[in-house]
């Protein structure tokens, strides 16, 4: 008697896949192949793609280095204010990018709370792009890393402790390998979010070719003048992002086995 239910689920899945895939398919269908190739020969487009990958990679590195031990603590300790901390860390997930941009300006802009230190070293600079990308993408990694560490078999941790390993060693040798699938998935989501970032980057870092104009900003600029070029650059960004997502997913799956 599970048959009708399975059919309903199958229909739901078809709708979901069609809805989510249609714009992607349309970009590739509409991007003339010749434009696709010539867009890669366009210096401004290459600058934007290079900047996007460099900045998002730097942001991701920072997120992983700081986020992994932070998530470990959130996953393994219960202390007063724990729920509040988790909420604060997840807040950027539900923040509109414009709010993130305003917030970054209010915090790290020349007039911001830390403006005395940051001055104009971040705003309208490449470093500012990295900060904006890290801000919007970090919660994705933290969320999944925390869930991953939380799901590590407690007996594994205990066994490591019983064998005399300290917490640092247990963290590095047992917890991280055991949670690698979740860490990989979190990293992939965070990277994807960083690659697609638009609003916070524009508000905090501005748009200047080769310095702060990432691929999404370049696509937006091209939309008004050269739709085929905008489509071509979109197609390249989708292809590379899909490749990244897929690679990280595969790496994570292999690690779990």
């Amino acid at each position: 008697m599970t048959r009708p239910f399975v059919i309903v689920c199958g229909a739901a899945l078809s709708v979901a896949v069609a809805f989510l895939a249609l714009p992607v398919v349309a970009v590739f269908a509409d991007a003339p192949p010749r434009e696709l190739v010539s867009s890669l020969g366009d210096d401004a487009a290459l600058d934007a793609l290079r900047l996007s990958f460099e900045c998002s990679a730097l942001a991701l590195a920072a997120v992983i280095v700081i986020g992994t031990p932070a998530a470990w603590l959130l996953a393994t300790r219960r202390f007063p204010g724990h729920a509040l901390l988790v909420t604060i860390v997840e807040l950027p997930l539900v923040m509109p990018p414009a709010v993130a941009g305003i917030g970054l300006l209010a915090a790290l802009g020349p007039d911001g709370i830390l403006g005395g230190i940051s001055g104009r070293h971040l705003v309208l600079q490449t470093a500012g792009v990295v900060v904006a990308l890290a801000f919007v993408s970090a919660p994705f990694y933290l969320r999944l890393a925390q869930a991953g560490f939380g799901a590590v078999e407690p007996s594994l941790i205990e066994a490591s402790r019983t064998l005399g390993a300290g917490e640092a060693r247990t963290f590095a040798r047992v917890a991280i390998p055991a949670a690698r699938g979740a860490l990989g998935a979190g990293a992939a989501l965070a990277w994807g979010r960083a690659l697609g970032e638009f609003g916070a980057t524009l508000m905090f870092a501005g748009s200047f070719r080769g310095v702060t104009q990432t691929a999404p900003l370049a696509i937006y600029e091209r939309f008004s003048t050269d739709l085929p070029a905008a489509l071509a650059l979109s197609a390249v960004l989708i292809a590379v992002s899909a490749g990244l997502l897929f690679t990280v997913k595969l790496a994570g799956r292999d690690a779990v086995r």
Partner: protein
Amino acid sequence: MAAVLVVAGCGGGSDQLKVSAAASLQPPFTALGGARFSFAGSDQLAAQIRAGARPDVFAAANSKLPDALYADGLVSKPVAFARNQLVIAVRRGSTIRSIAQLAPPGVAIATGSATVPVGAYTATTLARLPAAQRAAIDRNVRSRDPDVAGVVGKVMEGAVDAGFVYLTDVVATRGRLRAVRLPPALQPEVVYEAAVVRGSLHAAAARAFVRGLVDGRGAALLRRAGFEAP
């Protein structure tokens, strides 16, 4: 299918007039009301119309974009309804009092991108400067924003020392920003044009809206916001 119909109903079922307007028109148009406004760079709005979007009215910060859409049969004959001035916006306490003061190294400037009207007007102004001065000012540009609202924001937040915007943008900040006027020889002709979009389901209301911008309540609100008569 049902979901698509629901979503379509959210947009198409509305009786309200849809107006795509240049970002600089936000204060007077918001005060005017009577329509659903979409504010952005005029070039973005024109591109949306080319891509198939169908607002009822397109109001741009230049004549070039509406004229091009008219030539392609996408809008009715555009009507000039306002003028504006390109100025240099600085913060209240700034020491910048002339365009020459934008040239020294270290001054940070924001402008519109080349495709948005305010950026094109800025390029016109800069092109009239001596080559060395123009190059020096160009080197100080830190951001080329997709619309004038972004430029205003960058000046307001102190991310840059100065930005090329419209006089009305400075008026709208109610004293937080100060306008440095350009010498008449450097002032480009900034004319706003509006047109009814072809295929509008509210063509009569759209025409009335455009007419109101020329000599109705819209015109009065435009004057109060600092726009000049066309």
